[in-house]
């Protein structure tokens, strides 16, 4: 326990100091941390799921507070919470038996309801939705391993299902933990393979002799473009350099190294070039529940230019980037303002930043935001590991991956 606690603290410090950056690596590290946290967590005999959820929430709150700008942390925490709920649900339903599925799931939700009376309404609603929603592709896929795992439990506890529930719990505890860890492993797997999953779809989107525009640097975009190249598609790529970090330069170099026809342009030339472009493909920092995108700075401009010339604007995003929050909340839309030294050299401008003369406030301000918000109406298509989606469909994906109870990780554990 202290071991895992110190791991948590270390990760929190890293997040705070912005030593972990990039949503993919953050997501992966968070998931791995939660996995070891869960595996070392001791669970009480009754209501293990609730206890586990509380424990994960407590850690999750710390992690989210450490770097509120990095939404991937919150996403993974919520995913893990959702996994725990799903596993618990499937275990109990399996134990009770297929016939009384609906009733038992309600019952399970009632126990949760006791734990968190504040959210009773949402819990009920979630349960209702769980029960009522038509099986999506995702749930169908997820259900297969569950039913495969479930039978032994039901067989062991089948004969005395109602009465010897407490004795049964013990095995169920281990079962639950085991299943959750299995599922988190799958999640980690999914995060690490999301590039390939997305890249597989490249040939469906990129055609011969097309011109693709991208901005800055994104690993996902790189894999996507290269996958198309490997499939013998020949196309050209315009790379906007992505001031002020100019990651586009390195990106273009790597593309050229992989044998793609590449042209580097300045960010300000995007509008001039967009009429020659067939498709804009970019990465994202996070995808919000309404289909809006939080993306590296400069992308809103590119999206507007693309819309003006009716060029498809495609956003590549791994599932871990799906954030179940809406961007109306200013806390969610926090932008990270980086150091102005990326824009200009402190020494050269130190005389303008002089506060010792004049009114006492410097006349020159330098603002260096890291992100842009691209509204959903500017995005034509999202490509995630599960396929292409409309911005308006994002809410549905989110319902698949997250439980409505977990949307507010912080407030709830505080209450």
């Amino acid at each position, binding site marked *: 326990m202290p071991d895992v606690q110190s791991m948590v*603290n270390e990760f929190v410090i890293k997040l*705070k100091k912005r030593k972990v950056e990039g949503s993919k690596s953050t997501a992966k590290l968070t998931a791995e941390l939660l996995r070891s946290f869960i595996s070392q967590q001791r669970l009480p005999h009754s209501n293990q799921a609730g206890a586990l959820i509380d424990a994960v929430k407590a850690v999750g709150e710390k992690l989210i507070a450490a770097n509120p700008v990095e939404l991937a942390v919150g996403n993974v925490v919520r995913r893990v919470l959702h996994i725990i709920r799903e596993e618990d649900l499937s275990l109990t339903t399996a134990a009770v038996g297929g016939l009384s599925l609906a009733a038992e799931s309600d019952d399970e939700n009632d126990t949760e309801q006791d734990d968190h009376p504040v959210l009773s309404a949402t819990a009920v609603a979630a349960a209702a939705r769980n029960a009522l929603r038509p099986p999506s592709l995702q749930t169908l896929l997820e259900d297969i391993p569950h039913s495969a795992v479930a039978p032994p439990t039901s067989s062991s506890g089948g004969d005395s299902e109602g009465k010897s529930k407490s004795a049964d719990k013990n095995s169920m505890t281990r079962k639950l933990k085991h299943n959750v860890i299995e599922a988190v492993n799958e999640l980690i797997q999914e995060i690490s393979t999301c590039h390939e999953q997305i890249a597989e779809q490249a040939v469906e989107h990129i055609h011969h002799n097309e011109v693709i525009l991208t901005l800055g640097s994104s690993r996902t975009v790189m894999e996507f473009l290269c996958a198309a190249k490997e499939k013998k598609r020949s196309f050209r790529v315009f790379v906007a350099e992505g001031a002020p970090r100019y990651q586009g330069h390195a990106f273009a170099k790597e593309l050229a190294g992989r044998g793609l026809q590449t042209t580097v342009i300045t960010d300000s030339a995007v509008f001039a070039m967009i009429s020659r472009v067939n498709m804009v493909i970019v990465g994202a920092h996070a995808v919000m529940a309404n289909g809006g995108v939080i993306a590296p700075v400069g992308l809103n401009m590119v999206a507007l230019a693309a819309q003006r010339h009716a060029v498809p604007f495609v956003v590549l995003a791994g599932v871990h980037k799906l954030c179940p929050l809406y961007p109306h909340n200013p806390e969610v839309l926090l932008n990270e*303002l980086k*150091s102005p*030294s990326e824009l200009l050299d402190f020494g050269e401008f130190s005389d303008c930043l002089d506060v010792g*003369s004049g009114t006492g406030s410097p006349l020159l301000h330098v603002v260096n935001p890291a992100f842009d918000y691209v509204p959903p109406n500017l995005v034509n298509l999202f490509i995630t590991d599960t396929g292409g989606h409309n911005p308006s469909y994002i809410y549905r994906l989110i319902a698949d991956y997250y439980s409505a109870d977990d949307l507010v990780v912080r407030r709830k554990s505080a209450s």
Partner: protein
Amino acid sequence: MVAKKGNKGGMGGEDAEEELTRVPLQAILLADSFATLFRPITLERPKVLLPLVNAPMIDYTLAWLESAGVDEVFVFCCAHSKQVIDYLENSKWFGQPNFSVTTIESYNSTSAGDALRLIYEKHVIRGDFILVTGDTVSNMPLTQALKEHKERRRKDSNAVMTMVIKQSKSSPITHQSRLGTEELFMAIDPETKQLLYYEDKAAALKGTISLDKALLMDNSSISLHNDKQDCYIDICSPEVLSLFTDNFDYQHLRRHFVKGLLVDDIMGYKIFTHEIHSSYAARIDNYRSYDTISKDIIQRWTYPLVPDVQFFGNSVTKLERQGMYRASDVELSRSAKIGPFTVIGSGTKIGNYTEVSNSVIGEGCVIGSDVSIDGCYIWDKVTIEDGCKLKHAIVCDGVIMKSGAVLEAGVVLSFKVIIGSRFVVPAYSKVSLLQQPVKQDSDEELEYADNSSGNIEIATLSNAAEKLEEELRTELSDSQIQSVSEVGNGGAGFIWSVSEGGHDEEWRHSVAPIPMDRLVEIIKNATDELDISNEDGNILPPSGELEPDSVNDSDEDVRDDSVQFEKEVEATFLRAVNENVKEDHVILEVNSLRLSYNLAATDCAGALFYAMMKLALDAPHGSPGELVKNVAAVITKWNKLLKYYLPSIDEEIEVILKFEEMCLESTKEYSTLFVQILHLLYDKDILEEDAILNWASEKEEADESDKLLLKQAEKFIQWLNEASEEEE
């Protein structure tokens, strides 16, 4: 366990090289600036714990060291060491994974030199280390600088130090207006980046700096910079510590150590520079740089060490529009106007129609209605009642400002001061509950001087501080009844008087922007300086505060010194006469006087002669004739002594000049006897004829008024001339 390993790294060579690769990176953090520029605040709290944008300065330094990959930090505490250690123990810095913080406590160190000597004795430093003070704010990565340093060490074991510098636009005013320091000149070899010359008191040199000729001979090229800023971050080899121990008079890191190494060419130690471009580094030296660096932090130059990133222990703060940082639980009135670039700490309440701009407000403050706050630094738990006006002030913890009080620009209110209602605190004044120590040192002098006296004083004062404070607390209730205190009705605190002549200097180091007229003056002076250097320096220097040591002053200084010296010599001589001291002893004493006043041998002769003439004059005499006899007696008696100081003609001429001066100015009695005594001196072999003739020929060109005595002596000189011709 650390000490057992010993200090092998100090030996240099291959051993050290191997060691460098495996020893953890160490840093020495001096949590004491050994200066008094932050008084009176630093009488009650050490400088490194003063909040800088709502986090103690030391947190910035430690957070940077930690993120830069330092494994082990030794925090050296001296003044208020208890407070520093208590703070560190309660913070989370102890027990961090992969980052150990150790405190070293000292009670009697008075300078950085003492501190490093003490650390050397502890044998804790095993390899290259980073030397910083606890008031450094930086986000620079150290890897590159370290790599360069180690590479240089591999090639040349004499490269003991790498100094981090940063470009800073060279405008005549920026050094002053940004960091409150004087212009810094450095000569750097552009290829090897070796530091060849360092002068941080350039203003005193009146726009001219003198470089050693050898520098130009030894180096193929030198680039001379006045646009660099010293970040006070040094990467040192262990030799640095032993150097401090060997040279026990090294006190100040820059003035003694760096300059000492640069001048000393016997050991051949070298200092190199590492220039940083995109990252930030600066040191808080005085109130002005406190202001500047606070604003740089708010402008995010120090990212990630900014208020909304929890780099360490600081409370959760959010950055809102226009650079306004607000902690989570701030109570703001709807009608309050919070301007851009402000920081408001948690738990603070701000009343109706209050305007805040460009300011930092700490935690738990209560600010009333209709208050205007501009460019201020308000620390924790401050109460400001309705209608107060604050402009460019520093307000420390627990201060209470009664309604309608006004702080003019540059005011500093130390801890728990109470300002009476409607009281106007005049500009640049410093108010403290502690009374000003009697001995007053000019701030600027102390900063650079050895300042042994200043610090001991602090130590004793800080002990007394607590007592005093308690007394004051009890008195406080009385003072409520007391009609008028020094800071208004119902106030508590003493306004510190600024040092004499220092009042003009206050604006230099204050948080308030430099007033317009001063700026104009600085710029004018700067351009004038340029003119001087262009036009051969014949123009009189412009008068003004910028040149405290202008040419006139320094001349006077020298004169003061020599007058003092003459008096001392006279006293010594009189003692010798009265107490029958041996001549040898007199010589010894006069010599030591000469050394301590740093004067030439000629001055001794003059002074001694003066003393003798004075003695003769003081002896009872009725007529000029008797006076001459007196002189003859004295001269005969002390002939040997005087002769000792007259090894060559130069000294003899000096004696004649001195005598002439006496005749004309101080002792008019001699004026009629000039020739007689001159003759006497000639007879006694004290003056050679060449000396007298030289003097005469020199005087030929002088003004008519000066020739008065020459005319008197005309016959004598003629006679001398003839005598010499006859000899030939």
